[in-house]
């Protein structure tokens, strides 16, 4: 369960503060996989980053007693100058995994990027990067995984593998996903939160959420 309490978030701009959310109160369950749906600029990613505590609201709080992953997206937390292995070890260290060697090996096996694991990440294709980030995330035990289109660039084999891993995790953990591709959302999620004009709405069944989201347009 995640609870948003009196949440206000704005970004400074030349035209004065741009409010994304104003005094938002909301609650939604996270036992199943939740998709966050909304138009461009509606605040999906902002909400997502606030859930992960990568950013903080101006006022109000995000309450949850679950261990959440970092927002897994293509660019986050990966140093392009450093090799895949070094990046993996960094992520393992700050998340205090029990055994670094063990973690490193599991990531290497899962990511399937072969010898390139020891080359700087800047030489990777975007698909390989996505594989690495996803592998780093899924091999740490979180209660809720936050995934931001990171799986969309992987090849079908990897996507199948990712889905299997997530389904496996789903027995014990939840997932929150942001994506524009409905196919992908159908593949991974079972319920939805729709953002419209700074207001949130929870749908227990994914299809209801999707149709509400489509009607907006």
């Amino acid at each position, binding site marked *: 369960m995640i609870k948003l309490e009196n949440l206000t978030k704005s970004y400074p701009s030349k035209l004065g503060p741009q409010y994304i959310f104003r005094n938002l109160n909301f609650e939604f369950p996270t036992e199943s996989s939740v998709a966050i749906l909304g138009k461009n600029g509606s605040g999906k990613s902002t909400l997502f980053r606030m859930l992960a505590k990568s950013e*903080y609201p101006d006022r109000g709080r995000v309450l949850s007693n679950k261990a959440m992953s*970092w927002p897994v997206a293509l660019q986050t937390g990966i140093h392009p100058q450093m090799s895949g292995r*070094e990046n993996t070890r960094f992520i393992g260290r700050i998340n205090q995994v029990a055994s670094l060697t063990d973690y490193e090996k599991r990531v290497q096996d899962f990511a399937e990027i072969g010898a390139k694991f020891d080359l700087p990440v800047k030489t990777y294709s975007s698909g390989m990067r996505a594989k690495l980030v996803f592998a780093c995330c899924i091999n740490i035990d979180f209660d809720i995984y936050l995934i931001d289109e990171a799986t969309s660039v992987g090849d079908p084999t990897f996507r199948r593998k990712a889905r299997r891993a997530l389904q496996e995790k789903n027995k014990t953990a939840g997932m929150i996903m942001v994506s524009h591709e409905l196919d992908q959302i159908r593949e991974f999620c079972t319920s939805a939160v729709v953002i419209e004009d700074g207001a949130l709405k929870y749908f227990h069944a994914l299809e209801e959420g999707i149709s509400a989201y489509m009607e907006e347009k």
Partner: protein
Amino acid sequence: MELSFKTQLRGWRTVIFALFLRELQSKFNDKLGLGWAFVEPFVFIFAMSFARSLISGNDVHSVPVFAFMMIGLIGVRTFLGCIGSVPNSLKANKPLYAFRQVQPIASVLTAAFTEFVVKFGVIVLIAIAIYVLNLDFELKDPMLLIVLYFLLWTLALAISLIFAVLIAFVPEVNKIKSMLSRPLFFISCTFFSLQDIPEKFWPWLVWNPLVHIIELARYACYPSYGNKGVSLEFIFEVTGVCLFLALSLYHISWKKILSR
């Protein structure tokens, strides 16, 4: 979820250690490697002090010219090195703030710590060189010298943090910073002694805590040099005020820095 103080402290330690390793690794990516960070200031300080001691006489107010120059240059280089690189670390590590464990101050602390380790290495190199070349050097009060060095480092860290926060909001402050730090090299008693300046001009110089630190460091090595016009209390006061200002500035603004 309440976390005990001990677990929090452990968390901070892991993050700073991980960032520290990352910083070292990225320095190793350079063709010249980490060694350059040690060699460059060492050669600079050593050559400059040596050249000066060849040109001008034997001693300045009973301190051998080589030791006199060396202390001044180490002081100024430590401070300027810190001010030059540490404020940028706040921005350089920006992608990492996606991990909620990594907070902006952790990267500032790590950068300052790295700077400290490197400069300490340079001091060790110089000490070895002095010993090997059998140069004239004495150290009367090592405790005072250590206290001074830690104060210097804390002061540099505090001022770096202030600049880091300001630069995060107004990037142009970076230009002002480099303009302000350039004359420091010349007004911090690096090349001259405060005693050589007529006393009526002292107020123009002694506002600068670096003058106090450098002059007292010479006094700590050679008590006959004297400590007229400078005081340890002043350094403590300035460091305390700067540190307080830096931490409060950071405290009110760090969450805003994240969304920039």
